[in-house]
């Protein structure tokens, strides 16, 4: 592991938390690169693959920590969304998903997973679940647009 790898990202025996532990105003940090921007310099919905949107939880990390991940670069930028926005219309909810990877251990890692229409925001949808059908696709499209409309750029990428 890199010597300047932040200790705050190490799991260090800490327990995985439940969806109820997220505060509505907690932030979820995501990385982005220059080629994620549209012609107006904004992050576009085409760059968001949902569900299982990978983020870092602000309670255990800083925006800059998005660089400490597989394929991360020092030139990467970071944007954030609030937990409240991530639960838009109960389409999704964040799930604490610490990464126990020797090189990129990350206690702050969160996946925003898709909920079925009848599901509560405090359940933990399983990893990799992507409901089929056009109705689900339409919900996801609305959700992705909503993320774009409500994100905050923490710092810009340089490449």
């Amino acid at each position, binding site marked *: 592991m890199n010597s300047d790898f932040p200790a705050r990202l190490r799991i260090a025996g800490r327990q995985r938390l439940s969806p109820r532990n997220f505060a509505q105003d907690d932030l979820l940090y995501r990385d982005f*690169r220059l080629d*994620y921007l549209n012609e107006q310099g904004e992050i576009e919905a085409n760059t968001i693959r949902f569900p299982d949107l990978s983020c870092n939880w602000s309670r255990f990390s800083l925006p800059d920590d998005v660089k400490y991940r597989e394929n991360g670069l020092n030139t990467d930028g970071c944007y954030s969304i609030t937990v409240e926005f991530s639960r838009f219309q109960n389409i999704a909810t964040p799930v604490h998903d610490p990464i126990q990877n020797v090189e990129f251990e990350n206690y702050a890692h969160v996946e925003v997973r898709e909920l079925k229409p009848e599901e509560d925001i405090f359940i933990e949808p399983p990893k990799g679940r992507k409901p089929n059908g056009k109705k689900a696709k*339409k919900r996801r499209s609305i959700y992705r*647009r*909503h993320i774009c*409309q409500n994100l905050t750029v923490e710092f810009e990428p340089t490449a």
Partner: protein
Amino acid sequence: MSTKVINLEHSEQETEFASDPLGSYFNAAVLEKETREGDSDYSETGNRGDEVPDWEEGEFQRWTFGGGPVSIVTLTKGYFSPGHLQARVADPRTDQGVVQQMLRFPIVLPDPSIGRLASSISRITLPTRWIEEGVQPPTLECRQKATRICTEIFEKFRLHPDFIAPSKEEGLFFVYRHPKSDRSLSMEIDNELDCLGQVYDSGEIYLTEFIETPRVISALVAAFNEF
């Protein structure tokens, strides 16, 4: 030298200028455009290697057609009227700009905007990082469907996308910006060939619909224009 085949359908009723000896030549449904890398005589075409010419109204391009009695032709778009090509044919041996024959026939080459669009769609590639993450590029069928829908939008509403990109959801993504409002129309065509249109601005989503019929396109454009 590479040869591109361009379909030019010739219309009999438009051939008042096209008496022989060249008329029979232009009655052929297929003409060949020759392009020569590094040949300065052809530098003015500006679209070497493209399947679809990329020219503006009033511009001319030089084409060489093999097999005919006359092999240098200058085509000018929109000289007589929009939607028509004018052909100026000259003998390659004398090539002094002498007009030997004037022809007029309907354009079946795509509109230049559509040509550029089709070209852009065919060239889209994924960012390196997405490839590393296992995202699949847009398929040929996806690109073809996107081209068809964008062409329809252009032909009906004269709208040209301001942003064209691959989608991380595996497909293609287009955004049209309204020139007089904050509204945008996005369209995403995935590799399953589902096409979702969405009208929105910075704070609201007005309409999200699958584009399955031309009526949906009209509804989306109406929402896009409503402000």
